[in-house]
């Protein structure tokens, strides 16, 4: 599944949010997540993508930002075994 599809599924599984309104351009603000919701969402992303999102190091305004950060961290943090050994 593509990153976007997985993020979308995460959203739909966890929140009552109309699917047709979910697109990469949507801002986190407009979805109506409060500060606790945001922390919870980051936690869900970490679990889904098996990554660690460093505290305070990411700015997430839109869902497109989320996609970019997740994809970047996934590449950085999922280093293939042979490269680790090198």
């Amino acid at each position, binding site marked *: 599944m593509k990153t976007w599809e997985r993020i979308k599924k995460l959203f739909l*599984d*966890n*929140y*009552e949010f109309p699917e047709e309104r979910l697109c990469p351009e949507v801002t986190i603000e407009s979805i109506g997540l409060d500060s606790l919701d945001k*922390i*919870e969402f980051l*936690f869900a992303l*970490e679990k889904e993508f098996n990554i660690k999102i460093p505290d305070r190091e990411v700015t997430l305004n839109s869902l497109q930002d989320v996609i970019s950060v997740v994809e970047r961290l996934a590449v950085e943090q999922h280093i293939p075994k042979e490269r680790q050994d090198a």
Partner: protein
Amino acid sequence: MRRVAITGMGIISPIGNTCEDFFNNLAAGRSGIRRISTDFAERLSIRIAAQADFNANDHFSKKIARTMDRATQFAQVAASQAWQDSGLQLADGEKTRAGVYLGTGMGAANTLEASYEQLFVQKVKRLHPLTVVMVMNNAAASLISIDRGLKGPCLTFSTACSSSAVAIGEAFRLIKHGYADIMLAGGTESLLTFGNLMSWESIGTLALEADDPSTSCRPFSKDRTGFVLGEGAAVLVLESLDRAKKRGAGIYGEVMGYGSTADAEHITKPSVEGQALAIKAALEEACIGPDGIDYINAHGTATLANDAVETRSIKKVFGRRAYTIPISSTKSMHGHLLGAAGAVELVASVLALRHRTVPPTSTLTVPDPECDLDYVPGNARTGIDLKTVMSNSFAFGGTNAVLIVRKYKND
């Protein structure tokens, strides 16, 4: 000193999730005690419990359901039922005079245990970010106040098996002495987890499974072996009587007295003196003598110690009169709801008043010479004109709480 009315009630219990179902089942002697089928059951020696038939998704959005422990969910639904039942609609100015007092023994036991399992067994790197706000013991009371904007006192009491009786008693006094006009009061408990069931198994107070599991808890019976753990919640709306009358509210009854004492003797062993003092204190506050009580909902846990001691406490206070008061332990049907027990049993007592029906000790079949009072064995008694009822709650730790409610007659 102001008088205090009960104007709304709500319940989630192993024998019904409305007051109507709950009392119909009590009156019919139906038990909610069953074998449990969870995956950890095979590692338990005692595999019975009184579970509530409750699915969070029937009551909450996914997001809300996910961020509340099961005990908190129970309390929320019971509070909503009670609030709706009371018909209350508060103006903003009145909300500073309204509050929430809840009792719970072990709070968010399910979430806590699941979190530890993730940490110790699955070795996760992080716990859910809302773990703290889910497991704190005041979560249930706080969410009830947040939902309705109630800005008066919001407290959580934890005195084991008397927690919710204490919460109701303290809320009653708050209104009586003028610190609040309206209180949502009650308690909640949900701890049928592997760790908790194992802990209870070890302390040796749990009933052994009977051939018919639903009869495993047999209060006051010579062959009693202990209690069955249950889960649920009950919340009552307490309101100053004047206010309730002025708005034409339906009044279930008037809270008359509350006795609160500590045994100050032993962490688990009950004390006749401590219990009798609590009963006496409640009677004194209600300004009634031993002849004034028409029904006692006993603590009646079905442990060897409790039932014998409670019987002696009742006799100590009521003397000869003790033999003519119908006394029952509804734990025979709904199990022991620990922190929610006092509230659930007060609801049972108030509904007994309303329906002129004394619920039975459904499983009492073998009389015990040490327990020689009228425990309403087997079947309910209908058409009984009850005026004043008493509910006993006695806890591990020795905190005793006794509540007295009188039928309200328009005056």
